[in-house]
């Protein structure tokens, strides 16, 4: 059969192609993940459905309090978006440290979450904002909470014939993102973590959402850590408690990049750093991490 490459000239056209080719179809836009798997001979023959030309999928806009980002929007667009810088710093900061500038000119949000790598840098911020994925089909579309979108390593809840067209979330200026790789560019995250905090007047955290990547088959919400922090002030003792709690939220593995023990220590230390960053507290006031 060999590979095929079909360029969609509209979203409906893309959906029709996805419908027709079902399991053989594979959406491609930037190509920064798929082309590498292709070179490594880890991508069986398929029909590429190219959505790179679909301008209607490239936008960042605010609609009734929600930030909506087209699936075809590149990471460099996110990195240069004043809207994100102001209203959703967690996603803005993630875009800044995503791979490298030249990859960011090609890689898209839809591609990054569609590839569903456990260490995808765009996932923790979207999860921390409790965002949603707009999934289109030939006969309609559905809204899928991002926390239900990732189902395993490289696997999502998408059915054959479905296309991610947008991610949307309620932004929060009190949010932050931290990434730890093995070097400072072109680094796959050993741990990445985002925090979104609703601060009350008296400084207590009315609500807090923390999402961690590269520590489980999918990005996960650190629910136990959140419970330790919710309703309390981000003081050292409280954070120390949450740092213990996060260990139950994560199930890191040992691989060629790092060991489980390293990921656990870094996860708790980065949780402390990202929460303080989200609450705009200067880190070294609060003393040393563990």
């Amino acid at each position: 059969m060999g590979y095929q490459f079909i360029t969609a000239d509209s979203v409906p056209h893309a959906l029709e192609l996805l419908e027709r080719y079902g399991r053989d179809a594979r959406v491609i836009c930037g190509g920064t993940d798929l082309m590498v798997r292709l070179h490594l001979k880890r991508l069986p023959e398929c029909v590429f459905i190219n959505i790179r030309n679909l301008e209607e999928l490239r936008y960042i806009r605010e609609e009734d309090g929600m930030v909506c980002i087209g699936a075809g929007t590149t990471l460099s667009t996110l990195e240069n978006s004043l809207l994100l810088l102001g209203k959703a710093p967690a996603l803005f900061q993630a875009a800044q440290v995503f791979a490298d500038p030249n990859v960011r000119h090609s890689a898209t949000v839809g591609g990054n979450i569609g590839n569903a790598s456990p260490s995808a840098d765009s996932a923790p911020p979207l999860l921390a904002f409790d965002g949603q994925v707009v999934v289109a089909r030939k006969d309609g579309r559905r809204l899928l909470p991002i926390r239900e979108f990732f189902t395993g390593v490289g696997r999502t809840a998408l059915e054959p014939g479905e296309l991610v067209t947008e991610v949307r979330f309620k932004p929060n200026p009190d949010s932050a993102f931290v990434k730890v790789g093995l070097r400072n560019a072109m680094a796959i995250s050993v741990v990445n973590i985002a925090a979104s905090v609703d601060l009350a007047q008296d400084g207590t955290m009315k609500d807090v959402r923390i999402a961690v990547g590269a520590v489980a088959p999918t990005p996960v919400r650190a629910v136990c850590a959140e419970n330790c922090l919710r309703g309390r002030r981000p003081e050292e003792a409280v954070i120390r408690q949450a740092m213990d709690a996060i260990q139950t939220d994560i199930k890191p593995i040992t691989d060629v990049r790092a060991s489980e023990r390293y990921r656990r220590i870094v996860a708790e230390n980065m949780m402390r750093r990202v929460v303080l960053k989200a609450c705009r507290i200067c880190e070294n006031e609060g003393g040393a991490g563990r």
Partner: protein
Amino acid sequence: MIKKGTGMACMFYPNGSTGKANPAGAFIKINHDGTAVLNIGATDIGQGSNTCMAQIAAQEMGLKLSQVRVVTGDTELTPYDAGTGACRVTYIAGNAVQKTARKAKRLLLDAAARKMGLIHSGQLVIEEGEIFLRYWPAKRMTIAEAATYSERILGQPIIAVDSYSPATMPLEEESGQGMPFEVSIYATQIAEVEVDTDTGEVKVTKLVAVHDCGKMLNPMLVEGQIEGGVVTGIGYGLYEQIIEDPVEGGIRNPSLATYQIPTSLDVPEDMVIDCVEIPEEKGPYGAKGVSEPTCNPTAPAIINAIYNATGVRIRDLPATREKVLFALRELERKEEG
């Protein structure tokens, strides 16, 4: 928390192979139009030897750099050279080129002397592309005139060949004593680091590198070699490691995604590079090689800086973030215990 520290390392390294012959040869042909072809066995693998060798030949023959064309990389047409390695090209091939250029100049001046009717060429000098009598500068001719006269009239092609082989003694089998090298070079590097105790990341914030290469023939090329070596040293000290399966064998990280060399964001913005210019009289125009060992002091300087910052001494390279973090934890446990 960020802890800062400073560390130092010294090194010395030879020019040339250890106690065995590693000669370099050169041909030079001066064309009738006053340009020259320099033909050497040593190859330029990016360190700049084609430029450096052409500089030596041009300076010696009184030509402009643009008038010397370098030919290398052909085992049939170039003379033998032991190869670009052992920090030997500037010193050994450089000496060969200088000796050959002197011979070519002698042939040129002899032809000029005959054309002028002089009995020998001792009083002739070459400056700014012209040959003239030292004490009667009005009597002059261009290099092209002399070359044309020699090649096209006298039928004497101006072709010179020479080589250089360091005088060394092999090491004795039992004691390892001997005189294995003709010249050595020295260097000291100082590294400043910031260690993030939450992740074990070591950031090299400043790197002072002072090297010795005799007289610098081309300061820009020398700096480039030191800056490149330093970054190789940073990779060796902090980032790079081949991981092999301990049971089955085979490399588990054979890609640039899992075997990570430093990117531009992993090297110090503040690189202070300098050379102490103590001329080496056995070297071409006082020069010695510099490139090969520029990475040697970097890793130990960083490891010593980590110790200075945190009290943790990493004795098994590389000092990955994981290794530094675990060592920090170990130190804390010992201090608490």
